[in-house]
């Protein structure tokens, strides 16, 4: 398995090269000019051109790509066009909120969705099953921002329990940190709960109809043990797969959630950078997200062996 993990990690290198080439090319051909944005309305075309030159945006495609790649290989993601700050510094400033939001969302979703899915499968066809499915449909149907506003209205404006916006670092205390992330986590987690609960229910229904479950019942194994030890463990592989694939969903959702709750994370950084055509930031963040996604999938593949010993690499 160790050799497999090393092979997979090494395989990320060509993947990243392709991603780098793709992202760079896409931004190169995309319309928009940061120099025009910087220069402002009153600038002359000559001023805009001078700014473009000073930013190196007038150089040929291959020269710019080669230069960017060379710097990446040296661990330098470049400097933001607008803030004049290193991209690595800006990502470092923003990574804690996004990482916290995503981890909390995953934990929240697993804690709620898996028992809900198991319950729905166990009580298949009853009102409990239908209620869980209704929650899932709502989770898929209600946009994150609508649910976010609703939560903010109830829990911040009306009940005054939680803040409307902002982020407090965990270094400033766990409760202030958690308090700021409760509403964003629930808002972002709803769609993830729906996804996980549905897949858990479907997989559990399949597993519960297997012969060994009937045998376990016949042997007098308790309901709880049968559901959570025998059945759920065998249903774990598809659930873990969905959790891994759902990271992409979370990244997309984090962009909206961070906007609604004014969390200074990577999602907002990306949106701001796209609107301003701050190429080095866009390239840096997309690369980071790509690496994350590849690594999450690797972890998921390795976890298969834990839950299903029949799987070997």
């Amino acid at each position, binding site marked *: 398995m160790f050799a497999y993990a090393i092979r997979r990690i090494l395989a990320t290198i060509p993947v990243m090269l392709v991603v780098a080439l793709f992202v760079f090319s896409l931004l190169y051909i995309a*319309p*928009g*000019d*940061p120099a*025009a*944005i*910087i*220069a*402002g*309305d*009153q*600038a*002359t*075309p000559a*001023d*805009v051109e*001078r*700014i473009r*030159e*000073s930013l190196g945006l007038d150089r040929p495609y291959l020269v710019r790509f080669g230069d960017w790649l060379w710097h990446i290989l040296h661990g330098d993601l470049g400097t*933001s066009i*607008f*803030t*004049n*700050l290193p991209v690595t510094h*800006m990502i470092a*400033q*923003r990574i804690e909120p996004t990482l916290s939001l995503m981890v909390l969302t995953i934990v929240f979703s697993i804690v709620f969705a898996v028992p809900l899915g198991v319950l729905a499968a166990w009580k298949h066809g009853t009102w409990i099953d239908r209620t869980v499915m209704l929650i899932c449909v709502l989770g898929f149907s209600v946009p994150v921002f609508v649910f976010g*506003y609703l939560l*903010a*209205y109830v829990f*911040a*404006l009306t*009940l*005054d*329990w*939680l*803040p*409307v*916006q*902002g982020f407090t670092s965990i270094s400033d205390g766990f409760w202030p940190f958690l308090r700021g992330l409760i509403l964003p986590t629930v808002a972002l987690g709803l769609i993830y709960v729906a996804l996980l609960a549905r897949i858990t229910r479907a997989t559990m229904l399949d597993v519960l109809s297997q012969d060994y479950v009937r045998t376990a019942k016949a042997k007098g194994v308790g309901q709880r043990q049968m559901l959570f030890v025998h059945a759920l463990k065998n249903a774990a592989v598809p659930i873990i797969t969905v959790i891994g694939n759902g990271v992409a969903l979370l990244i997309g959702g984090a962009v909206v959630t961070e*906007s*609604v*709750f*004014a969390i*200074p994370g990577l999602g*907002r*950084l990306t949106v*701001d950078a796209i*609107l*301003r*055509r701050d190429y080095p930031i866009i390239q840096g963040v997309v690369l980071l997200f790509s690496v994350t996604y590849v690594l999450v999938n690797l972890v998921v593949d390795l976890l298969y062996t834990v839950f299903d010993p029949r799987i070997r690499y």
Partner: protein
Amino acid sequence: MHRRDFLKTATAGSLAAAGSLAMPRLARAADSKVLHFVPQANLANLDPIWTTQYVVRNGSLLIWDTLYGVNDKLEPQPQMCESHEVSPDFKTWTFKLRDGLKFHDGTPVLARDVVASITRWMVRDAPMGVPIKKRTDALEAVDDRTFRFRLNQPYPKMLFALGKSSSPCLFIMPERIAQTDPFKQISEYVGSGPMRFKRDEWVPGSKAAFEKFDGYVPRAEPANWLAGGKRMYFDRIEWHILPDSGTASAALQNGEVDWWETPLSDLVPLLKASPNLKVDIADPLGNIGSFRINHLYPPFNDVRARRAVQIALSQADYMGAVVGEDPALWKPIPGFFTPDTPLYTENGGEPLKGKRDYDRAKQLLAEAGYKNEPIILLVATDVAITKAQGDVTADLLKRIGMNVQYTALDWGTVGQRRAKKDPPAQGGWHIFHTWHAGADCVNPAPYTALDASGDTAWFGWPKSDMVQEQIAAWFAATDLAGEKTAIDKLNKAAMDDVVYIPTGFFKGYQAWNKKLTGVVKAPFPVFWDVKKA
């Protein structure tokens, strides 16, 4: 324990927990020495010469000071300068700095810092800096507190230029910073203004913080916009970047922030209903909506086609789309200059008054040779004001029989494409929308959009000798009567040649917590003299 007893206990426990969560209430923007402010946009950088974004200018007003500053009557008043002398021919201007001015790093402000700052500014300020640079034979530091311009042509508007409030303002920086290439960003934010920038706390896109500069010596006069004593009653000002209007509104209502610079007009009724908030017009000089036409290509290279749109355009339709039903927020403007300012005129504004005439518009288009060619309308759909104007224009052009090609883009792409002089069918354009801050439209000096010098004019490249003559006449005027005469003629000339079409004059609101006092109406947030209970 019985099930019912358990449920009772659990419910009571939950309520108690809820109560304990609500008491004490959340930490609020309660410290009277800290102001929590929501600016109009993200503060992505802080070089007010390198970029002209208003949010950068607004932040810079805290950090850097200016030689002169305009008051609410738009009169330039001495700020860092103590006095000045001008020769009768307006060619030699000598200025003396106030005593005791200091930068945030503790070094004194010297004339050579001023010279370096003016030199950098003159390269980038197209409306006033560049013309002054062209007229300057020498700009020199006479001694530590005195500097002098020696011009080869008179420039009576010098004080207005040195104190202009529109971007880029002339901010005074230490010489070592001001010597930075004007086309490259500065990397130090050291000024002599009332607050110093906390660079270590800056998270672009989220937060910026400013700390009171104890070495600042305000002028003795009362504060009035950028003039007078800038007395700070806060130890710290925090800018919270809240791009989502719903979030900003909730944060203001919840007391998490104190002051929101630009609330969305749709949310204003909600804010007005809140007992803790006060809502009022933000900038009395407002904004002028702009229907910008490309003068280079048919059909709009023919003045009859431009006039066809002009006589059909309804400002009420545009303003309804931009600001909604609130009558306090807009008014028609049959002219180019900011209403309620000394030079405002409606001379020549008849084409924008009265009933809209679609039949005459169609006739003019036919006379101009328009034969249903596609009209490329660039619409920045990510900016509410341009999107609203674009939608009205698409409808208007269809009504007068034009074949509109509505090109939905984001503002960044419009910014790039509008600079293209290519034919519209080959990547160029016919029409785009923007708006001009009223502060930039009070006279021709900062009013780039009214320049009609052809190739070197603003996007659309209008060419009108009549307009240019009157702009020159205004610059040469030495008294208000002379200026008014020039502006009357200029307004008519620009209307006749349809340099661009104003789509209406509109204002916006600002909202703040009632704990704040001293918030004034101005084209920029004025932080001095604001207090918090």
